[in-house]
């Protein structure tokens, strides 16, 4: 029953008032992607990046300025073509950030509501409600008022309500952000299992990287209304497309330099101290370009064993012992970078010399402009 979702060149422009008067701001700027039937795609990005607006355009709750939304081969949104199907006729399921379960109804009434809109009555309705509640493990709560449920249970009611009518696509708008941390972890794993069992196509919006990695078949990273990279979680983490995506996956160490030469996917970057760093380089960057090299603290190796490239002499400036891991501030290559070592024993003291190993495949060089 689940369908493919195609979003083509979606744009949503708002009029904002600035000190200079009204100005146009693109909340969603030329976003295109396709989700295969049964696939889960997570849109990830900081608040205000346009991910929720994109999702609400798919739902029909927002009207985009231009672009097309095609679900299962039918065009549902095409402002230029004069097509704007209202949300009620899209046959989508949606789980809201605030749960949006109706407080004046019981669990059963909430879940049966969309079936009533579709004229499903009697035994068929009871059966569908029971199956949906079984799926989210709330069958014993069917006749409770929803106001007596915990946050996690309310979110399960919302999930059951959004799936009970087998929607073409399931939309989830930061469904876990109002829950406490522990519950969030449990429900996160449950969510993927439930969606996959039903085989729904899902578009999921969040600002939490770990949630995205655990839930998504693919992750789309957004910023300022643009979709920067849409890829599998491992590609996002191991081959981020630009400095922002790299930063979003935790690559907080940035070293300035200039690309000296390149050979295939790798190149040599001259940094401020004059030393040369081997790094992965994107396809279009030519030698001579100013670049920034980004890498994650957990990829920095202190006093590596055995031979290798990218070994530099550095010093430990500070040490922050955090129990199961230790974060060091290391001065190397004329810059201060962070290194993270896992384990409950801190191996290096402050003000000692260390050899710093930067694995070339974990160093990503991006051109400075853009």
């Amino acid at each position: 029953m689940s369908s493919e979702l195609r979003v083509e060149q979606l744009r949503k422009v708002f009029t904002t008032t600035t000190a200079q008067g009204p100005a146009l701001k693109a909340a969603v700027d030329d976003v295109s992607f396709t989700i295969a039937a049964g696939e889960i795609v997570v849109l990830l990005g900081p608040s205000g990046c346009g991910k929720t607006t994109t999702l609400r355009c798919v739902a029909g709750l927002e009207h985009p300025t231009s672009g097309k939304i095609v679900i299962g081969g039918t065009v549902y949104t095409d402002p230029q073509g004069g097509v704007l199907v209202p949300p009620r006729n899209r046959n989508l399921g949606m789980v809201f950030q605030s749960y949006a379960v109706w407080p004046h109804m019981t669990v059963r009434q909430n879940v049966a509501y969309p079936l009533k809109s579709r004229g499903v009555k009697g035994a068929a309705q009871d059966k569908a409600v029971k199956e949906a509640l079984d799926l989210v493990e709330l069958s014993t709560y069917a006749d409770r008022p929803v106001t007596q449920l915990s946050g996690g249970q309310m979110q399960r009611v919302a999930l059951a309500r959004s799936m009970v009518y087998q929607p073409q696509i399931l939309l989830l708008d930061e469904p876990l952000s109002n829950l406490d941390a522990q519950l969030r972890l449990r429900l996160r794993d449950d969510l993927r299992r439930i969606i996959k069992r039903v085989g729904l196509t899902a578009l999921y919006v969040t600002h939490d990287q770990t949630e995205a990695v655990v839930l998504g078949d693919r992750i789309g990273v957004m910023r300022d209304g643009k979709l920067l990279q849409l890829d599998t979680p491992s590609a996002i983490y191991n081959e981020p497309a630009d400095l922002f995506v790299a930063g979003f996956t935790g690559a907080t160490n940035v070293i300035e330099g200039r690309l000296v030469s390149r050979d295939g996917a790798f190149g040599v970057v001259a940094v401020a101290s004059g030393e040369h760093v081997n790094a992965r380089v994107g396809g279009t960057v030519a030698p001579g370009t100013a670049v920034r090299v980004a890498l994650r603290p957990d990829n920095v190796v202190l006093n590596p064993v055995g031979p290798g490239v990218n070994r530099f002499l550095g010093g430990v400036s500070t040490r922050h012992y955090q129990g199961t891991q230790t974060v060091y501030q290391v001065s190397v290559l004329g810059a201060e970078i962070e290194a993270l070592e896992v384990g409950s024993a801190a191996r290096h003291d402050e003000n000692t010399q260390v050899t710093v190993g930067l694995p070339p495949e974990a160093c990503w060089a991006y051109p400075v402009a853009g």
Partner: protein
Amino acid sequence: MVDAGAASLAASDKVGVTRAWVPWAWSGFLIAVLAFLVLYPTSMLLIGALTTTNPVVEGYSLSDISIGNFLAVVMNPNVAAALGNALLACAGGTAVAVAIGLAFAWVVVRTNTPCKGLIASAGMLPLFVPPLVAGVAWSILGSPKTGLLNLLLNKAGIPFRFDLYSMSGIIFVFGIYYAPYVYMFTAAALRNMDPALEDAAEISGASATRTMATVTFPLIMPAILSGMLLSFVVMLGIYGIPAVLGAPANISVLTTYIFALTAWSPPRYNTAAAVAVILMIVTGVLVYLQQKIVSGRSYTTVAGKAFRPRPLNLGKWRFMTLGLAILYLFVVVVLPTIALFIAAFRKFLFIKDIPALFETKQYGWQHFIKMFDNPLTIASIINSIKVGIITAIVGGLLSFAIGYTITRTRAPGRRMIDVITTIPVAIPGLVIGVAYLWAWIGLPGGLYGTLWILALAFVARFIPDTVKALSTSLLQIHRELEEAAWICGRGTLSTIASIVLPLARPGVVAAMTLLFILSMRELGSSLFLYSSGTMVMAVQLLGYYEGGNIGITAAFSLVQMVLLGVLISFTNWLSRPGRGSAAIKPDTAPTGVVRSG
């Protein structure tokens, strides 16, 4: 999970394109209704003020429209006298109200006076007394010859006499009854003020009085001004008090003068319209100033963190503040109630000495029996209930529709709808009455003379309050609750019926009850719109008073007070905390009552 659902969906997959004309039609409809209720009558009032033709005899005519007609009225010395009296009475009344209200606020919020919670709630009671009833009670107490207080003074051998039939009488009664308004504003400001601001002044070396003068007062000044302006505006629109206390002394204010003009033979409708326009302009300017003060309150005293103002320890003086508070409550609540009871149950109001006051054979139900023997009494009660029900239903539905459109939709022109809805804030009830008179009296076979014209005038008069209350209530319903229903396959109307209305129900019910109460007691606009067949309670009470029968007047006042008391308790019960999250805020109810005077 359900193949049936999928199948039916496929059948209904008629990819419906949004009908773009629907929001336009809806906004057009609402604007048309508001134009009918608000804009058309006010325009007719303006036309009336600028012409000299009698609408009853000659119909409406624009032939002699001229600003000269309006100026001629403004130049009239009687109008100038009425305007002067009105401004003097309201200024004096406001001064008294500020003195009492401010002191009350300080006692309740900033001192350790005993029983201050009780004092605070009892202090709001005057807000619920209809002005005409207050006027009647005080005329029983303080008429120069037969007033109960003066009889007591006479028996006690004190040569001093109260004379409430005077400008100072009007000022006094205005002041004591509208002090709670100033209290509401200033108490809130005092309560929200961070005590650290005052501590800082004292640590910098300022004395307690200096701190009060240089920190406390400047900080709550916007609240004082705001309360002052609003109580001034409310007094300006009141008919009952100056009608009862001013008439014997030949003191007319704008409201009583307007009514006198329409009661003359032949009625001077054009002059009445022109004076009403003057009243509307003065009110409009003051309301505008008040709104500016409220919105542009430059110093934020609310720091966002919770703090409890440290009450000043008054020592033994706290019993004096308690005494003063009790004295105020005695004067404004107990004394008038006693007066009404004595007048209502006593055969003759003449009391020759103190023991005569307690002679039981002097008391009985005779005034009540006589009152109910008059068929007009029952008729007026029934009419008032009918008008109240129509107002509550029409006003409730319209307010819900407007509130929903303003807060929940992207309908075109919703800003305009919002603005038109707030216009009546600046129009006193009496002026609405004159405007409706002008709008309908010249159209034979129309609304004039029916209960509907009263109800529609009340809807127009109170729509700003009910829309505001309902908007607050609607804003408390999370948007996503509605969006979830749309996603589930419901249209706008079905979503309103199954989700929004059930969740907003406590607010809607409270707003409708409030409308019912307000229209039951409304006098100002009823004066111009009732006919012999559509007599309402408030006007009937005035009739009894003007007929000179104090006993029946007092009896009917009591009946009305009991009716209103029951209704108000019912509203409080409806909107009590815990009856649903969207319940009307407790503080919106008194505001609505107050604005109506």
